[in-house]
């Protein structure tokens, strides 16, 4: 990890940022098309995809694409997202988190407890969405499953889709709330003050080498 000119710390390298935004764009497409097929009140969203049949055709392919792209991120993020004792403590102090009282929180590494929790929620949701999605993918796979399994798959698919959408709403809001986060994922860097404030253990870790040099 190299320090950028004077006051920048690199947080996400370009390949990670690009993958993240590929996942993000596919998520928006798959969520919008999924909602269109889930609730009649949102069926009009099928117009964005060229009508009902096109939405039905595209949705599962976009979903598989998103799952594959996320798998690349997941592999890269896996090691830094292992839950530690301090992460549970961080989550328990939710009130301090929500009220921006970071001085009361345990030191955070590269990711905080909330980010790690989100990471695993996404993994569980995507896995269940993928498996149930296969069963309800009428054009290619449904005929290989008993109808009760397809029914159960339909319910699971809706449930995990909603959980994932809610989780991503939280994710997006957190990025708006904690200023400097969006720049980290668009430009790739954060200021030392940002790192010191939000991810102090990570800050120490990445600046250690720089001091020695």
């Amino acid at each position, binding site marked *: 990890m190299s320090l950028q000119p004077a*006051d920048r710390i690199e947080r996400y390298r370009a390949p990670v940022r690009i993958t993240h935004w590929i996942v993000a764009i596919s998520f928006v497409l798959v969520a919008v098309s999924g909602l269109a*097929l*889930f*609730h*009649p*009140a949102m*069926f009009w969203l*099928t117009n964005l995809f060229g*009508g*009902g*049949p096109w*939405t*039905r055709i595209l949705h599962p392919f976009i979903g598989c694409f998103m799952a594959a792209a996320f798998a690349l991120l997941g592999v890269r993020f896996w090691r830094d997202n292992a839950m530690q004792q301090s992460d549970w403590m961080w989550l328990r102090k939710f009130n301090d988190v*929500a*009220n*921006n009282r*970071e001085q009361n929180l345990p030191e955070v590494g590269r990711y905080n407890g909330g980010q790690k929790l989100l990471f695993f929620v996404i993994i569980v949701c995507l896995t269940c969405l993928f498996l149930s999605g296969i069963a*309800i993918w*009428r*054009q290619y796979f*449904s005929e290989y499953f008993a*109808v*009760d399994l*397809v*029914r*159960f798959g*339909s*319910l699971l698919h*809706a*449930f995990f889709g*909603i959980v994932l*959408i*809610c989780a991503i*709403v*939280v994710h997006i*809001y957190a990025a*708006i*709330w*904690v*200023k*400097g986060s969006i720049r980290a994922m668009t430009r790739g860097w954060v*200021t*030392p*003050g*940002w*790192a*010191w*404030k*939000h991810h102090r253990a990570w*800050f*120490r870790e990445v*600046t*250690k080498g*720089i*001091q020695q040099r």
Partner: protein
Amino acid sequence: MPLQSLDIVRRSATTLPSPEVRGAHTGQVAKLIDTTKCIGCKACQVACMEWNDLRDAIGSCTGHYDNPPDLSENSWTLMRFTEYENPKGDLEWLIRKDGCMHCADPGCLNACPSPGAIVQYANGIVDFQEENCIGCGYCITGCPFDVPRISKQDKKAYKCTLCSDRVAVGLEPACVKSCPTGAIVFGTKEDMTQHAEERIVDLKSRGFEQAGLYDPAGVGGTHVMYVLHHADQPMLYSGLPDKPRISPTVSLWKGITKPLALFAIVATAAVGFLHYIGVGPNETDERDEDAARRELEKTP
């Protein structure tokens, strides 16, 4: 819809009423299939093909009389043959004309996500409007009788229409017209129920103690009904469901899940919005930068 219908009482994925000023004031319709009179001649299958201009692929013999072996997008009705050995040791040939039951509470219509792809007319007929069909197959997931089929060619769902086009102009369905033994009759649901009762009395007098009418209440009754010799064991007739109903899983999926899900998403976003207004963003300022700088300087 090619012709305007003013008698649509239910329309898939639609909340507001559809044009329904024309009612079924002479009574809802029903087709009564008397399995005890059926000789398995398949005239009904041929009439269905002819009227609806359907030609299924020529298949191969699968070792029983069912031909074609299953319902398909081109075969909307099918005679299913069962060889049943009764407790007395006699062979009974149970033949059931399979096809859409036209449920009063249709699982297909409940499950369909596409507005107007499935409608129910005031006379009770459940009809697919293929021009609105998106090919998702949810109707298959929702159907308690395993009836709808998606065409491999155009990816639209098809099933028996109860000859809604014929019924609309006062004709009986094609299968009814063709039946040589009078095993299929058509009229108002009331008349058909009454006719069935007479048949059942007759059957009981001939030793079929368990004869009865199949008009399952679990789906609100059906507009295609059967007279069965063994009404206590409908499963004998090629797996006719004993107590069909819309699967609870489907009801959950298409019921409370929908409003709850929307509420959950909107509530999550609203909490975020209120948090931003109430607590405000978490910003990094000069003091944090200074603290970071001091920390960097003191590190050996």
